[in-house]
């Protein structure tokens, strides 16, 4: 997306060479680029496309659920819709969203490097991602998949007659894109930091993406092998999930959740990183308890590996095993709470500007808190028996993944938009969209907590009439949410051409990425930066910040 110079541009700003123009503006120059900023934009465009495809599936789901009878789609189609919604949103949007798009763009700049350690690998990861996406979309076109995004055996191995293999291959391939990105980030943070950039001078966004990368590198291969085993069992009748072959279907759930629970932290840790950048900037205060924030990120990443069993409380696992998993799940709340309290303490007595990025970040804090607390309800063994596989679970994880991760992602896109594009987005539209999304989201998903608590199971296309009022509220909220998500697509696209030129540092933020022109030159910095202070050196008394 090249940004041509025109009417609103100052004469000086238009002539500064930057990554959008320096390497050429042809399609080939984009598809063969090794520049982390350009690869980030390739990711940004592709994940946006997948977000709206996944969103279209969600729209049809909510339309179907507006009435108790199954009158819009058949139950088979409904199964395929929620499967595609889940597969696309989890693997093709949420997992790569913040790390591969924003992280790719920002991490090298935040640590004062010219690029990631392995630029060619970075480009390869995008091509691998696209290849995996094509397989997934091919399955959609060929007729869809009905296993749910969790591919539970023995349904996925023995009974489903849909295009399971295509999707398995797609997700398998996408996994390697995640692994390569994670590997690149880990090596970059270890070896490419600018002089003076010690570990405890790293912005929390870098910490968050670093911890996420460790999860990506250690958990994703387990999923890859597990999916391979499902495919082998489905294709050749050999494997470890079928009891007739000596296997156990429950083994699949263990292996799947060993990846897929940490995957939740792949989604939410980078989101926490984004929020930790936005809040200090618009409160004009140093982040409260920086070291605790960094340790909490690592703590969540480590605990995240040890709680997968809480997805299996009703699968017939041992009671004592369940008690341990329940306890460990409760422990995740401690570092999470540290983060929420520290963000709140950062805001306390700050000079707050309610700009669009901050609205998104505040939305994140609130919605993440609700999602996290309801997670504790689900982690309680006795209550979980009642709530498993109900809409309560659906509402819980959407509060974390959509209310948390997507809110923060959009906040990050707005916050760094001036840096990425060199243009300001229209601030009032940004605020309207943030508020619409916040209200639309709550109207969509809060009724689902009540539905689930009332006993409505997930993954059915019909329901008893007494659930209709709450379902109509939820579907109405979804339509507001849809408008909220389409708005930024419009005004951010508009701002590429007509937005006011952004200076190097429109928010007067402190990160290294703001110490270079917007958009940055290809090598990021005219001179390699040398770091002499810690992050977030905001001065409260200068809190007269007005965006734009």
């Amino acid at each position, binding site marked *: 997306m090249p940004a041509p110079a025109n009417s609103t541009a100052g004469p000086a700003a238009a002539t500064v060479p930057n990554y959008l123009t320096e390497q050429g503006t042809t399609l080939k120059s984009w598809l063969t680029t090794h520049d982390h900023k350009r690869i980030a934009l390739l990711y940004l465009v592709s994940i946006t496309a997948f977000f709206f495809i996944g969103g279209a599936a969600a729209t049809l789901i909510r339309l179907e659920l507006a009435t108790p009878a199954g009158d819009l789609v058949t139950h088979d189609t409904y199964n395929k819709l929620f499967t595609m919604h889940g597969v696309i949103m989890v693997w093709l949007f949420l997992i790569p969203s913040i790390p591969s798009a924003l992280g790719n763009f920002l991490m090298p700049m935040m640590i004062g*490097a*010219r*690029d*990631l*350690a*392995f*630029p060619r690998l970075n480009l390869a990861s995008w091509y691998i991602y696209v290849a995996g996406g094509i397989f997934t979309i091919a399955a959609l076109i060929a007729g869809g998949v009905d296993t749910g995004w969790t591919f539970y055996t023995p349904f996925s191995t023995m009974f489903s007659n849909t295009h399971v293999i295509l999707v398995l291959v797609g997700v398998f391939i996408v996994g390697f894109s995640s*692994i390569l990105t*994670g*590997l690149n980030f*880990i*090596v*970059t943070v*270890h*070896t*490419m930091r600018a*002089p003076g950039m010690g570990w405890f001078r790293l912005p929390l966004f870098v910490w968050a993406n670093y911890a996420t990368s460790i999860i990506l*590198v*250690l*958990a*994703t*291969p*387990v999923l*890859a*092998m*597990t999916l391979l*085993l499902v495919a*082998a069992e489905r294709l*050749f*009748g*050999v*494997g*470890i999930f079928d*009891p*007739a*072959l*000596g*296997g*156990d279907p429950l*083994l699949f759930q*263990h*292996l799947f959740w060993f990846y897929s629970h940490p995957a939740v932290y792949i989604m939410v840790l980078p989101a926490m990183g984004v929020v930790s950048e936005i809040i200090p900037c618009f409160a004009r205060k140093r982040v409260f308890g920086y070291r605790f924030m960094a340790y909490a990120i690592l703590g969540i990443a480590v605990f995240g590996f040890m709680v997968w069993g809480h997805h299996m409380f009703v699968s017939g696992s041992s009671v004592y095993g369940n008690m341990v998993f329940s306890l460990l799940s409760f422990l995740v709340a401690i570092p999470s709470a540290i983060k929420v309290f520290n963000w709140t303490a950062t805001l306390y007595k700050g000079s707050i500007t309610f700009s669009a990025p901050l609205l998104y970040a505040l939305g994140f804090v609130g919605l993440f808190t609700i999602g996290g607390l309801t997670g504790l309800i689900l982690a309680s063994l006795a209550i979980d028996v009642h709530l498993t596989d109900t809409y309560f679970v659906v509402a819980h994880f959407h509060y974390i993944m959509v209310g948390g991760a997507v809110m923060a992602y959009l906040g990050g896109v707005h916050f760094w938009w001036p840096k990425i594009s060199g243009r300001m987005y229209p601030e009032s539209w940004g605020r309207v969209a943030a508020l619409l999304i916040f209200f639309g989201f709550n109207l969509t998903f809060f009724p689902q907590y009540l539905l689930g608590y009332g006993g409505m199971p997930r993954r059915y296309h019909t329901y008893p009439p007494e659930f209709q009022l709450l379902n109509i509220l939820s579907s109405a909220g979804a339509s507001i949410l849809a408008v909220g998500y389409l708005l930024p697509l419009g005004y951010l696209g508009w701002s590429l051409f007509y937005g006011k030129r952004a200076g190097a540092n429109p928010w007067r933020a402190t990160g290294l990425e703001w110490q270079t022109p917007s958009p940055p030159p290809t*090598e990021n910095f005219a*001179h*390699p*930066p*040398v770091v*002499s202070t810690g992050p977030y050196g905001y001065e409260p008394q200068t809190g007269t910040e007005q965006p734009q």
Partner: protein
Amino acid sequence: MKTAAPAAPASVPPQFDTPAQHDAAATLGLWVFLATELMFFGPLFFGYSYGRSHFPEAFAVASRHTDVVLGSINTAVLLTSSFTMALAVGMRKAKARRAAMWLLWATAALGVVFLCIKGTEYLHDWQQHLVPGTGFALEGGDSAGAQLFFFLYFATTALHAVHLTLGISATGIFALALQRGAAQFANGERIELVALYWHFVDVIWIFLYPILYLVGRSGG
């Protein structure tokens, strides 16, 4: 505070400042890659633990049908290849390029010998109807458990063989490069990375050998 960019040598990619930084990144990159690889094998080892705890007798019976003689010879072959590989790195770093080249060729050749022996074993397994999914038949013990054992046996050893094949290719490329005098390409740091990978594949085997060939033979 800003300082002028340090001039990096031409052989270093533009994102790095110094050759040392380049080497550190490459080495760490390979270690992280090996961590990923280890986790990739993880579900198979986990599946083995599951099977062994659920079907101890069947696993013991099935394990006795593996070829412990060929398996042991292969273990010796692979350990020797790691030895020649380690020597090759030392020789290359001591600038003894010719010795390094021959040691790399020896390493690759031992890898090929391993694959040939493994192939012979697979042939014997096939003749004895030990391949799951193709008329699996094994006398005595629980058939499902035994089939699970042999599924894991084939899955782990085949995956190991795929990794070994990649290792042989990489080793061969560097041996050829040294033979053709491409010393800049086949420098000590790069050969050390190939060696790291080779040793990793070796370590995987060091775990596979006892769990597949030995443990089931212990006891009555």
